[in-house]
């Protein structure tokens, strides 16, 4: 159960090697979290991530999960929920893709879309139903500032996050009043493996900063969290820039 400050005792990470998710798990283990499920494609990286969290004193288990295999989500995730209540589901998987390659290879562009959007739709719905049956819990969805307005430079990734973001907002509304809380997290440029080698955008942030924002959002039962918070204002302005101007902006 969550305590009065929204700190969860158990969590399930979809995308168990995500740096943001692991930073969040480390932060929450320092509070109340004692049980962590890391769901992801079986790999040494997943096992290493689990071992690193175990050192902090949590009971960590891994479960094979593939965003690109939605038919299996019901069974895989059902097993996790059958083991006990999950106070927090962190939907953290996603791929950035390679914009220039993806534009020329529709097949790989579709993989980006399927991972980031379709995979989230199926696993998000499975988890939402399980949380609703519990009568409590949070579903935290890692969206992106890129989903707020598609940019020339990464519109394939951006459009998939836009779909994810709209899905998560709608799901949050659908679950309003059921005891389940859905929180959409929109980080800007985060310095992770995913962004290594990319030119850094203004207001760049770190996985730890996103983790802090998630913890605060859980405490406040927020519906939307921007990281850093200043992005909320920036994006409010950018949303209203005319397209002819927007496409020429150096962002």
């Amino acid at each position, binding site marked *: *159960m*969550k*305590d*009065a*400050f*929204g*700190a969860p*005792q158990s969590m399930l990470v979809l995308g168990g090697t995500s740096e943001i998710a692991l930073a969040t798990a480390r932060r929450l283990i320092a*509070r*109340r979290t004692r049980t962590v499920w890391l769901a992801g494609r079986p790999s040494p990286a997943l096992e290493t991530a689990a071992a690193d969290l175990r050192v902090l004193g949590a009971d960590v288990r891994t479960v094979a999960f593939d965003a690109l295999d939605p038919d299996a989500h019901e069974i895989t995730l059902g097993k996790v929920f059958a083991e006990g*209540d999950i106070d927090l589901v962190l939907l953290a998987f996603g791929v950035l893709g390679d914009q220039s390659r993806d534009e020329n290879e529709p097949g790989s562009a579709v993989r980006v879309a399927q991972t980031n959007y379709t995979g989230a739709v199926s696993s998000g719905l499975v988890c939402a139903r399980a949380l609703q*049956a*519990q*009568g*409590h819990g949070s579903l935290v969805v890692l969206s992106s500032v890129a989903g707020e307005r598609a940019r020339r430079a990464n519109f394939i990734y951006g459009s998939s996050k836009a779909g994810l973001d709209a899905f998560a907002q709608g799901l949050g509304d659908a679950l309003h*009043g*059921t*005891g*389940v809380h859905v929180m959409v997290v929109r980080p800007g440029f985060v310095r992770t493996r995913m962004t290594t080698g990319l030119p850094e955008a203004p207001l760049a942030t770190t996985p730890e900063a996103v983790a802090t924002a998630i913890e605060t959002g859980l*405490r*406040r039962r927020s519906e939307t969290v921007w990281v850093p918070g200043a992005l909320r204002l920036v994006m409010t302005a950018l949303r209203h820039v005319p397209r002819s101007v927007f496409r020429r902006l150096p962002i």
Partner: protein
Amino acid sequence: MPADTVSVTGWGRTAPTTARLIRPRSYEEAAAAVRECGARGGIPRGLGRAYGDAAQNAGGAVFDMTGLDRVHAIDADGGTVLCDAGVSLHRLMEVLLPLGWFVPVTPGTRYVTVGGAIGADIHGKNHHVSGSFARHVLSFELLTADGEIRTVSRGTPLFDATAGGMGLTGVILTATVRLQPVATSLMSVDTERATDLDDLMARLTATDHRYRYSVAWIDLLARGASMGRSVLTRGDHAPLEVLADRTRARRAPLEFRPGSLPAAPAWLPEGLLGRTTVGLFNELWYRKAPRERSGELQRISTFFHPLDGVPHWNRVYGRGGFVQYQFVVGYGQEDALRRIVHRISQRRCPSFLAVLKRFGEGDPGWLSFPMSGWTLALDIPANLPGLDGFLDELDEEVTAAAGRVYLAKDSRLRPELLSEMYPRLGDFRALREELDPRSVFTSDLSRRLGL
């Protein structure tokens, strides 16, 4: 039987969860509700005054017992009452005071049910004299997980597991309670001020035994030399002869007139109770109290239940709700108490309802909170930055001093500390395992702390 799916919180309004609220109107309906409550179990609920998650059950059933509220029999000579567990102490006072009887123990609110009073084994300002509520309960009827109704008498393991058992042994249906005789419905109250914590503790230690009821309001925002300054209010039921002749009070000495103000509005902004407002309030409250006054006549509601006059006062903390922290440390652990009060006052926690009192001997309930020693209760807005970690640190101090926190008020304790605080937790778990192997009785509290 009526059932709605609703969001449920405790009085502190933190951590809401959703449950089916079932309102049994007869014992048979209650038994049916327990038998049919499903895989996520159920938990009885009274008037929802437990601060934390004791009467919540996410995804399961919550049995609202306030529909079963009949007073069955009053023995006006012997001084006992047999009533449904859904009867409130407020109702009992209305019924019993005209007959010259009072409830044996009342907490800071009259709006708790008899079932809740047993389940939390509540205490009042008279604990140092009278012990906690269950000490005055002769027997009760308990609806257990198998759907049977058992009569449970004092001195049995099931009685001691249920007294303070937070509703996890079953649903109490009726109880027989021993009452306190009174000659009037007024209180004779002595008030004095203490200039700091040591002065307060010295006064309480030296003179507490002279009063049936005793409590100190303590200003936790005061720092430095005035740290722990407080107002002591102590007294007893007023005898008939102190009421002046030819007054209304003398003509109707047992009349019960609690009075009430308008309710706090449903929506109030957060941060209303910050350091400035609470600091001002505390300053005023301390200054307005007489340095020393004795024999003042007060109504029962003024003396025991000042906040009941403002319905829904919990809303003044805004949407974020508040956390109530109450702990006890034994006599001989005064240094731990001093350290904790010092830390709270250094931290500038805006608490305007901080109360210190001395407990008498502990009670036999396995998870009963009181033990002989000092108890401090305070409430703090839940959105105060860093409050979670700070209270964890206070827990460490309390545990190191062999003390404990009160489960009826808890909403955030680290589960690992529970067995240290409650040495009979193992017995409680074993009895529950035997009596209720499928954990039919389950609450958010029991899930969170692994009770």
